């Protein structure tokens, strides 16, 4: 190199010899550089494969091995006898992970062909794909047979983003009968994933509880995901299984529900929009809690399609609302046993009578009895079994509203209960303080009068009515319970003297078994007697409709509360038949449900006959309706935005505070149809009280598009 520097000087002598010399020196330089590069490469090689070996080994391993979560089997939900209400079915499924799909249109087309999806299903799939978060798997199909599953599986390398899986899907054997009770499952939404960063939530095929018990007990039912380690190629093709860790299924949830009663009651409701609650009035166990019409939770688990959505939201019977907990209704005459108890506690002699001539003048207004012809002389028992309004108008003025409201509270009206449900509408038990606070108006006598017949501001839900009748039947503070297995403690006494209760029980028994208002409600057993109370709650004033016919949403609500056996109360039942046209729509349901409880065969015989008329079980009718819709609309149903769907689902659930217009007048009760061919009284005298009563919360929700 020393000589090389001389090259800086110009006009050197260049000859063959100097060039040869220069070549020799420079070839050594070139050789050294080559050697140097060789050493550098060797050092680099050593650095990579020795010093950083651990790091790269890990990276190679994480390339090679793909850990996929196996969604855990969801815990079963069982009834009190161990019959599954929600179980898991092994199935083959296909999911789509949006962020891995390269050509969505092509992928959907191919899948549509492979799985022979209907145009409606394709449309729903496109909707779901559009709406899904990039990482959240979208269910394409489940419950596939092996051939279809295999047909998709072999094409996986050409369909990036498609995941096929053997897994388990939720199955509800009772279908629509348990829709509102159990809820349903569905893929986790973005909000749910944000709240709970459990990676199992975005595992294809994993469903979270979306409503009711499935949602409430989500953490218990979830279980622990299993894991499968597989060797995968760079393009994601699985080469082989390495090892598998089994999932830990979720905990089993045992309910107090009796599957047989639950299903029977749901089916017995038939085409009505109704709620039925059956309780064990000794323990508070809820044996059945039905709200019909309902949805099929089995078909909700892959998301709610456009057509399905249209079908459910078109239905004015509001299948999406759980009427047991969220439906609020004026209780009508079903409050009379409760009011009578408060009278007795206030010191009223039950034998004290009043003359009913079909109405009672209070101040300058006339309050009519439902029986415009009058009941003659009425004591407390007759006031209950004949449901005489004048009796209650008369004595309520003497006793006052406060003792009545207090008794209503003791019996559970206006309360909510510690149940594993996502919300209860607890309604209103009006009293003077409440009215002053809410409307800033003084309590009026007519308010008391309205309240004693369960009209005016009075609003209850069917569960409260069941609790009320359980407490009346047992004389104890019965608390409703849904989850089985807690130690039974004998519920504390209500503190109502037993002779008061016995008097009321007898009067309620006479409703069905004596000279009462619902003689067809008697059970078809000579030795088991049912005690009950009818109720008919007006929805609109008599000037708009009689409450018996005309527009469905103008018809009266029918109520029936009862317990049986009358002499040793065991089962309590409350039925609300929305716009059923009065109590005759309600008590046959209660009667048949109790008949079923005591004699399954007898109950089923009745139901089989009825279902022939109605066109099958609720499931069959729902399916038929779906077929009609798909024939009628096809893919033409409008898309439902996520917000709207959410709003409606929640809206149907949100405890409503129904706009209770201020009541300025007497609510004349609608005539209670009597088995003994009572002529419709609405035709007899036009009501002087045209103000509509508080509309039931449900009767508008179903009609808004």
């Amino acid at each position: 190199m020393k000589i090389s520097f001389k090259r800086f000087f110009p006009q050197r002598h260049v000859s063959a010899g100097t060039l040869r010399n220069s070549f020799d020196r420079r070839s050594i330089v070139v050789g050294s550089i080559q050697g140097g590069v060789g050493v550098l490469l060797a050092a680099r090689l050593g650095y990579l494969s020795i010093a950083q070996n651990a790091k790269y080994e890990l990276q190679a391993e994480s390339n090679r091995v793909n850990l996929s979560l196996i969604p855990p089997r969801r815990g079963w939900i069982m009834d009190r006898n161990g019959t599954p209400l929600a179980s898991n079915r092994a199935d083959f499924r296909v999911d789509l992970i949006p962020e891995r799909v390269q050509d969505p249109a092509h992928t959907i087309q191919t899948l549509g062909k492979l799985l022979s999806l209907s145009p409606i299903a394709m449309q729903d799939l496109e909707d779901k794909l559009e709406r899904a978060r990039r990482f959240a798997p979208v269910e394409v199909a489940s419950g596939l047979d092996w051939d279809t599953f295999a047909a998709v599986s072999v094409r996986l390398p050409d369909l990036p983003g498609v995941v096929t899986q053997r897994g388990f899907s939720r199955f509800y054997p009772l279908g629509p009968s348990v829709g509102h009770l159990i809820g349903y499952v569905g893929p986790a939404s973005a909000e749910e994933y944000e709240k709970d960063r459990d990676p199992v939530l975005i595992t294809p095929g994993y469903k979270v509880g979306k409503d009711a018990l499935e949602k409430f007990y989500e953490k218990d039912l979830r279980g622990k995901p299993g894991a499968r380690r597989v060797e995968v190629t760079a393009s994601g093709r699985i080469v082989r299984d390495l090892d598998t860790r089994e999932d830990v299924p979720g905990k089993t949830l045992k309910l107090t529900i009796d599957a047989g009663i639950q299903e029977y009651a749901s089916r017995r409701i038939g085409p009505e929009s109704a709620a039925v609650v059956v309780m064990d009035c000794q323990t508070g166990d809820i044996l059945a809690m039905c709200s019909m019409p309902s949805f099929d939770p089995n078909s909700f688990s892959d998301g709610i399609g456009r057509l399905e959505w249209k079908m459910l939201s078109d239905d004015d019977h509001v299948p999406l609302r759980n009427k047991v907990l969220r439906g609020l209704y004026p209780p009508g005459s079903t409050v009379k046993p409760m009011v009578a108890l408060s009278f007795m506690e206030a010191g009223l002699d039950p034998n004290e009578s009043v003359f009913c001539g079909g109405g009672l003048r209070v101040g300058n207004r006339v309050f009519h009895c439902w029986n415009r012809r009058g009941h003659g002389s009425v004591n407390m028992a007759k006031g209950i079994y004949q449901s005489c309004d004048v009796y209650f108008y008369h004595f309520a003025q003497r006793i006052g509203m406060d003792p009545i409201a207090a008794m209503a509270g003791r019996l559970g009206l206006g309360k909510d209960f510690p149940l594993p449900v996502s919300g209860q509408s607890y309604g209103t038990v009006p009293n003077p303080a409440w009215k002053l606070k809410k409307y800033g108006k003084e309590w009026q006598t007519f308010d008391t009068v309205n309240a004693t017949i369960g009209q005016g501001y009075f609003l209850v839900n069917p569960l409260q009515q069941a609790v009320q009748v359980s407490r009346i039947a047992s004389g104890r503070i019965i608390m409703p319970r849904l989850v089985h297995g807690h130690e039974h403690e004998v519920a504390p006494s209500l503190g109502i003297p037993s002779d008061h209760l016995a008097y009321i029980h007898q009067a309620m028994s006479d409703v069905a078994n004596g000279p009462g208002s619902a003689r067809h409600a008697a059970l078809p057993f000579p030795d088991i007697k049912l005690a009950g109370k009818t109720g008919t709650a007006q929805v609109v004033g008599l000037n708009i409709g009689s409450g018996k016919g005309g527009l469905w949403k103008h018809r009266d609500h029918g109520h029936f509360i009862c317990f049986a056996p009358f002499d040793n109360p065991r089962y309590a039942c409350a039925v609300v038949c929305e716009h059923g046209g009065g109590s005759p729509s309600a008590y046959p349901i209660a009667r048949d449900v109790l008949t079923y409880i005591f004699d399954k065969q007898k109950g089923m015989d009745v139901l089989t006959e009825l279902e022939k008329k109605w066109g099958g079980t609720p499931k069959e009718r729902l399916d038929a309706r779906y077929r009609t819709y798909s024939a009628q609309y096809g893919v033409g149903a409008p898309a439902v935005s996520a917000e709207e769907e959410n709003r409606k689902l929640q809206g149907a659930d949100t405890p409503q505070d129904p706009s209770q217009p201020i009541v300025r007048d007497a609510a004349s009760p609608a005539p209670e149809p009597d088995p003994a061919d009572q002529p419709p009284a609405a035709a007899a005298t036009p009501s002087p009280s045209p103000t509509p009563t508080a509309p039931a919360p449900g009767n508008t929700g179903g009609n808004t598009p």
Partner: protein
Amino acid sequence: MISRSIVPDAIARQPWHMLIPLMSLVSLGAAVLYSAAGGNLQPYALSHVMRFLIFLCMAIVISRFSRDFFRMAAYPVYGAIVVLLVLVEAIGAVGGGSQRWLNLGFMTLQPSELMKPAIVLVLARFYETLPHAMTASWRGLVPAGVLIGIPALFVMIQPDLGTALAICFGGAVTMFLAGLPLSWFIGAGATAAVVAPIAFFTLLHDYQRNRVLVFLDPESDPLGTGYHITQSKIAIGSGGFLGKGFGNGSQSHLQYLPESHTDFVFATMAEEWGMLGGLFVLFVFAIVLSWGLRVARRAPDRFSSLLAAGMSATIFFYVAINLMMVMGLAPVVGIPLPFMSHGGTSMLTNMICVGTLMAVNRWNRRPGSIS
């Protein structure tokens, strides 16, 4: 008839101390390709060995040519390849897209590859004929620059940066060894340092620029261009000292490693054979290249020594750039590893270089003879 009497003699006189390590390297290459094909001789390993044997015969034939034949052929060969380069460019322009090869019917020919040994040949010839006194003047520089520049430009616009660099490198080394003033190289180096950034932003294609940027920070683009470098480093690094064992390389077998049988064959090898295999490869190349340089230094005349040194520099360039690339020391340029990567053209070029070295080696042993 003549050849039959020559064969034993020819075999005996081959440089076996270089050829045997080279054959073992090719065998290792074949083993790696066998594994990369998932344990099959087809499609890589068998054709790899076949090509080597065919081209070895070709190299032996080349080594039989006389010095004067080489001298005579230098300019015509160079000219013919430049014409082919132009032809490729023209066909590419007509066909509407970039093209690097000519389809001769029985094989595809990549003229740019042939230019690598040809540039060395033509420069050796040029400096031999250049009067010694002119070596340090512009007349020693400009014609050589033109000889390098024409093919380099054509290859560059193909675009094939790697091959263009290889041609320039081969030419530059030959010029350096020819005795051009050192100050010119230092000046050129300094100029390159200034021009390179400008060229980087103006001359290079987007994908080339991107490759360089990604090379500087592979993790910036783990799924794109950086993916190659990252996966290659994972393959080499995870091999450890002894490797994962023959046929057990997960990176290559599960297709994480791109181009596992061509440009990144070293990574495929290092994953299964470990650092030990890597050192063996380096060792064989050291033998071959140092043999090449020794041949050059022993060469009696200017032409043969420049030719031999240039040829070994060309092989070296392949090896160095490829290994630096797979180990993350250089950007991704499409340069295969001599004697290991699967690919006919690269094998052809390198065996031409080896054949030329063997020819010079033969001339050395019979100084002055013109057989």
